[in-house]
């Protein structure tokens, strides 16, 4: 039985390697490595652009803000210039300091997209600036050694923003490799009548599914390791990364087989398939806006996977087991559903 399974696996692997898949994956690893290493920014930049006008007696605020690294182009000459700059760029905020330095009158110009809480946070920041200005200290002073915060675990090392894209690339590009390609395999086999022939052979549905899943686990894990190696080098715990990636690729391949069983060819599958892939990418919004994670979003398989991969790549001491447990549970459920759908939608062709 094992020999039959490995025969099937070898056949699927040969089919995958024969169709320019490996050169394509190598090319994609290179593109992603160039993007991560050279294109994506290595420093945090605020989403909003701030503009300032300082009309206080001694211009202390402009001086302080310049000292803290605010660019010269962000300081404007008067209120009119500030108003038009904020009006033109809808995502910018203007701050006008006037009156006495010790108790200034501050005008904040903004679009209606800024919430009341957002404004209060901005005012808290400006209050801190005013306080430091009157105390004669630098803006960032007192921030390096926080005394009013505690941590559940020792603080993790800061992660360069360009590297934070790697877990996302793994979750939304590498893990879904099997989802797409296994569909094409199935359509090809369907059109060539291979599935019909397989159904009357001694091989079972389980072997059919597992052989394809194993092919993409091997290819996907190699693809994932190639990506991480080319972007983050050897500083990663590959002993954990490899099984986690394998589990993720396995899950998406099983989902891919289940979905593909409903369609008869690539053209028919393509747009619903792309739509599902986009739905799977929704958790990327939680990565961009960490405070946004409605409950429905957490049910998408890529949600726990992305955070688990993030923990492996940038360890912070967070327990991985619950995340891996969720992933394992989803994989088992996906396998059971996949067997049922393959039997019902694909293998029945052989019986008729």
């Amino acid at each position, binding site marked *: 039985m094992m020999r039959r399974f490995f025969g099937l696996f070898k056949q699927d692997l040969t089919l995958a390697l024969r*169709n*320019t*898949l490996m050169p*394509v994956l190598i090319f*994609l690893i290179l*593109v992603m490595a160039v993007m991560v290493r050279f294109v994506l920014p290595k420093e*945090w930049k605020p*989403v909003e652009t701030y503009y300032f006008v300082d009309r206080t007696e001694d211009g202390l605020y402009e001086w302080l803000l310049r000292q803290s690294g605010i660019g010269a182009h962000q300081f404007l000459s008067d209120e009119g210039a500030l108003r038009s700059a*904020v*009006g033109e*760029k809808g*995502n910018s905020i203007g701050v006008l300091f006037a*009156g006495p330095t010790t108790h200034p*009158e*501050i*005008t*904040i110009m903004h*679009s*209606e*997209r800024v919430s*009341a*809480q957002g404004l*209060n946070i901005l005012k*808290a920041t*400006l*209050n*801190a600036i*005013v*306080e430091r200005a009157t105390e004669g200290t630098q803006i960032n002073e007192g*921030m390096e050694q926080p005394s*009013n*915060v*505690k*941590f*559940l*675990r*020792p*603080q*993790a090392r800061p992660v360069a923003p360009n590297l934070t894209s790697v877990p996302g690339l793994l979750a939304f590009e590498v893990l879904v490799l099997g989802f797409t*390609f296994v569909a*094409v*395999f199935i*359509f*090809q086999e369907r059109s060539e009548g291979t599935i019909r022939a397989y159904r009357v052979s001694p091989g079972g549905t389980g072997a059919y599914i597992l052989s394809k899943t194993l092919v993409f686990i091997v290819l996907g894990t190699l693809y994932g390791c190639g990506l991480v190696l080319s972007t983050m080098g050897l500083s990663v715990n590959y002993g954990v990364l490899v099984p986690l990636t394998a589990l993720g690729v396995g899950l998406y391949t099983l989902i891919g087989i289940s979905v593909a069983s409903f369609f008869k*060819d*690539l053209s028919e599958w*393509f*747009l*619903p398939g*792309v*739509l599902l892939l*986009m*739905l799977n990418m929704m958790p990327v*919004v939680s990565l961009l*806006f960490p*405070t946004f994670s409605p409950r429905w979003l957490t049910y998408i398989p890529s949600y726990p996977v992305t955070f688990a991969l993030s923990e492996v790549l*940038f360890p*912070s*001491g*967070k327990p991985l087991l619950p995340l891996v447990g969720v992933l394992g549970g989803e994989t088992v459920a996906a396998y059971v559903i996949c067997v049922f759908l393959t039997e019902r939608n694909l293998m029945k062709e052989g019986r008729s």
Partner: protein
Amino acid sequence: MTVPRGISVRRVLSLMRQDFTTALRDNIMVYIIIAPLLMAFALRLLIPAAESSRLVFAVDNSMSPDVVEKIREYGDVELYDRAGVISRVERLDAAVGVLSDTGRLYFLFEGNEPRPLIQAYQVILEDINRGDAVADYDDVNLGPGRSITYDLIALGLIMGTVFFAGVISGFNIVDERDTRAIHALSVSPVRIREYAAARGTFATVLAAIVAASASRVMVGPSIDLLRLLALVILSAPLMALVSLLIGLFSHNQITAIAILKIAMPVYVALPLGTIYVPQKLQFLFYILPSYWQFEALKALYAPSLMAHGFWFSGLMTFVTGGLYLLMAANAFRRRVGLR
């Protein structure tokens, strides 16, 4: 009916009718119209909700109501007992715990939060503890404003729509190569320019319908629809190029998907990535037709990021797309034996 340069409009229309029939038969027509619209609806709901998401404070429920109300001014408050605060902070999303130690308020983090975020929370805590006002404030609301994130996502969706219209047309070519139907075409009077014109026009019509609808859903009537349609028409050579390239390099569906995996980042992700590239290095991307398409779309959707004018970028999309199309059509003609 024949127009100059030897293109038979009748043959072009006949090829387009074939594509249309195949697309209608396989429900592709329905999917290509519905899929981007569904996506546009989802994004329209999701992105503003995400952007307006607020800081989450998991607060010890033994804290005084005054302090809780004060914290509520900066974000959403969830009340828990002390153990509940810790387990809330442990969850995957970003929530900060608010506890007190011998009457002194402190924030509790997991330890994996970025430093700038912790500093922002520190400033809030300072403000909560501050007694007297240190400044007087006046707020000036300048109107609706725009979100660059939202505009760029809308722009990406439109680019994706145009790209997929070319891809669908490309899949028809792969199908013709796979079933060897293309050999029948090679012994027919159909010329390569008619073949490319049919593929490009079919994709352009599809793209125009879907891009206009998706744009309407995402950003409403604020975009000049005529300009958008003009850009889709100027992108016709680019769409024909996408479909011919997929057809040229793919002899079956597996290679078609593999080629797609390369084409998609080059077409969509690379131009989008140029927003991070300094202006002085932008010239490196001038050879990409989709870069110019992105530039033209920036003029429509994110004018504050615009580096070139709409018409100049649109024309460059046409010219660069056309040049590559000539090369691809020549290679395709030799590969499949069309005249």
